[in-house]
């Protein structure tokens, strides 16, 4: 196995970022196309803030909506995938620093990961 040099780690992270964003964009595009085919002629109004319904706010509601091919649930699923891209990048960096035996940066990266996960727990299961 080749050594876990900074350069190699950064290349792998680059690939992870690129494919993650492409996947998320594809899901959002699919959901958006479905929405516009079905509801493209309805009037949209964002002047008044109502807040999204709860099934578009948490993970289980979004996944349930997406697997039953609800277009808005599918877009939100793409959004969750998109949020997962930087989170995965940080998680991957924890492993990479651990393989480099760089303890200081394992701790640094774990702190960043903890803040991100705290934010995501607010979305709820």
């Amino acid at each position, binding site marked *: 196995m080749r050594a876990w040099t*900074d350069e190699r780690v*950064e*290349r792998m*992270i*680059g*690939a992870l*970022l*690129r494919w993650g*964003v492409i996947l998320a*964009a594809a899901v*959002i*595009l699919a*959901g*958006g196309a479905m*929405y*516009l085919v079905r*509801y*493209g*002629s*309805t*009037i*949209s109004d*964002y*002047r*008044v*803030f109502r*807040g*999204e319904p709860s099934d*578009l*706010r*948490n993970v289980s509601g979004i996944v349930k909506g997406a697997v039953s091919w609800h*277009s*808005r*649930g599918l*877009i*939100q699923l793409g*959004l969750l995938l*998109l*949020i997962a*891209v*930087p*989170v995965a*990048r*940080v998680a991957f*960096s924890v492993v990479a620093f651990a393989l480099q035996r760089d303890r*200081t*940066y394992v701790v*640094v*990266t774990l*702190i*960043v990961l903890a*803040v*991100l996960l*705290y*934010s*995501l*727990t*607010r*979305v*709820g299961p």
Partner: protein
Amino acid sequence: MNSLEFSLLVWLGSLAAGFLGSLTGLGGGVVIVPLLALRFGVDIRYAIGASLVSVIATSSGAAAAYVKEGYSNLRIGMFLEIATTIGALAGAFLAARMSPSAIAVIFGVVLFYSAYLSNRPRPEHPSAARPDPLAAFLRMDSTYPTTEGLQSYRVHNVPGGFGLMFVAGALSGLLGIGSGAVKVLAMDQVMRIPFKVSTTTSNFMIGVTAAASTGVYLSRGYIDPVLVMPVMLGTLAGSMLGARVLTRAKSRILRIVFSLVILALGVELIYNGLTGRL
């Protein structure tokens, strides 16, 4: 205007914003929110939610390209992300307690400041002879490629940069922008990191920062999928296009024009915020 027309127009606007944002280095996020709020009549909270999502997409997409060139510094980025993510959470919580008008006024002021920051001359600081103990402990000193081969650099004033990064994160979480201008200021001016390393590392950090506040916005119902779709797809396509022509285009005049647009939007946001129209 029906949903299809609305989505197409927002997509085109976001495409232009992403394109100009990446060409000028000012970022697309700073124009998305005013564009949606002022031109499309979108409530500023929905606009900020949609903008945050597009910031994650463009940052991650662009970072993938920069990583290959060997400019960005993973360690500096990761360490400073502690400050930006905690700042982003603070900003997102603050956003719920502020009126849309107050947010609009702050946004306008930040637009002014961003335009100023990116147009002012940048003196390159010579790297000082003595290494900074904290930067050395954190192994931040590194090298970057130049035309004369690898150039080494030393990092200074880590606590100062860390503090300013907290502010950058809070602005990102409050306003739904990448706040790249403030991040670059912290690295380039305070920590004296070479400009090219600062900008690429900043780009790398923006996605992680935005992800920290997006969770809060999503759980609060500020992120509308039907609005997110054209904004995210438009800015992503625009910024990728911008990155392609970046090397060829003369960006100086473009940056001045884009800065004037930003200043005009800033005036309008502050005016509308103060008169309570948003």
